């Protein structure tokens, strides 16, 4: 709705192409809040490496961390599970143990630490010694599948899509004159749409890509009267996008693919992160 400006109001440009054919689009992203999900294969490989590392690790030097004869040393020694030493005349089905410093050299060493149970309610913020329970990586917005929420899909990068002219796309704005940089036009346009209670960080003034339209269709080559959309990148830092009477969604890459026009996705898909 914003980029439908009459031809008569177009400012003159010094280029060969009139300024009313230039638009700017804003790819506004919310960066991941939690670490990415680890795939099953990755998790298994990391586990294998960890076990190998533990097997090849030197024996834990207890005497360095616990002074002999102290209470801490006695408590630590008490909760360790020591392997059975070798005995003459005893048959060990898994081989004769080789103990050094209380560790069977043939296997990894299991060091158990005193598990001090914290008292109280984990939600009681006044209690300093409350037990620590991590917050869920799956939020309320994930459960209700609220696509307008910034709190959904925490391990993924989300992108802002709006419905302009009946089509889902990145918010697009008309360039009115050539005295304002493209990213500034896009940033101020975003605030006109969704209020100024939003903090964004514009990545660069240079465009990330260009999409050319001829009669509303995406074309590869520029002809006469081609409308150009320059895509600018930006990150949302704080605040939120609350437009009036405009549909919007925060979507991850594969959801963007499902919502936008396939031709449009072909032009922007590589700009989005997995």
């Amino acid at each position, binding site marked *: 709705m914003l980029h439908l400006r009459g031809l008569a109001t177009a400012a003159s440009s010094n280029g060969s192409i009139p300024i009313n054919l230039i638009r700017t689009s804003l790819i506004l992203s919310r960066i991941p809040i939690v670490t990415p999900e680890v795939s099953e294969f990755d998790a298994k490989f990391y586990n294998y490496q960890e076990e190998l590392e533990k097997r090849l690790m030197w024996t834990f030097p207890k005497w360095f961390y616990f002074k002999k004869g102290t209470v801490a040393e006695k408590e630590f020694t008490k909760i360790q599970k020591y392997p059975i030493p070798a005995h003459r005349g005893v048959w060990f089905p898994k081989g004769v143990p080789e103990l050094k410093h209380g560790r069977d050299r043939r296997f990894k060493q299991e060091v158990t630490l005193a598990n001090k149970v914290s008292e109280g309610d984990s939600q009681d913020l006044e209690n300093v010694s409350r037990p620590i329970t991590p917050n869920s990586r799956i939020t309320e917005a994930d459960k209700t599948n609220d696509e307008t929420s*910034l709190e959904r899909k925490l391990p993924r990068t989300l992108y802002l899509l709006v419905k302009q002219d009946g089509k889902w796309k990145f918010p697009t704005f008309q360039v009115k004159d050539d005295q304002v940089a493209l990213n500034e036009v896009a940033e101020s346009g975003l605030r006109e749409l969704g209020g100024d209670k939003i903090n964004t960080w514009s990545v660069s003034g240079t465009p990330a890509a260009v999409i050319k339209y001829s009669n509303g269709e995406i074309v590869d080559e520029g002809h006469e009267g081609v409308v150009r959309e320059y895509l600018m990148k930006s990150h949302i830092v704080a605040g939120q996008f609350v437009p009036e009477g405009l549909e919007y969604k925060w979507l991850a890459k594969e959801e963007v693919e499902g919502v936008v026009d396939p031709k449009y996705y072909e032009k922007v898909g590589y700009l989005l992160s997995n």
Partner: protein
Amino acid sequence: MFSRLARRQLPAVRQLQQARLKRSKAGLNPDAQRVVTQLSVMSAGRKMPKMLKLCNEDYVKHKTIMKAWSVRRKEQIREEEEVLKKQYEGMKEASEDLKRVNERLFELSNRHEYGKRFPLELRVPTEYPARQVWYYDYVRKREE
């Protein structure tokens, strides 16, 4: 003469026995003992695990795992490089197009942004989210 000989030899014998029985660490003063402890932490003596000897089957398994991992990593790196290349081509195309379309906008887009810094408010991803996942109550700074 014998007694003199015995007197001369006896201390030597006793010293030898003491040297074998007495532990050298026992007599160390605390500072020296601390140094010995610290060195023992860094040295491999008596702390090394047994050498890992894999049977043929385990060795084949290990090789398969490592190969699978390297194949996957290579594929990931190739995909990332492809995307980066595409993004670079996209930027280049857009910039060249902008230069042809509007010289003034091109100049504006390429001006140096003095004092531009990465925002400190953008947080590094953590294992679990904070109690307040997103900061909504942002109020724009008044420009003077």
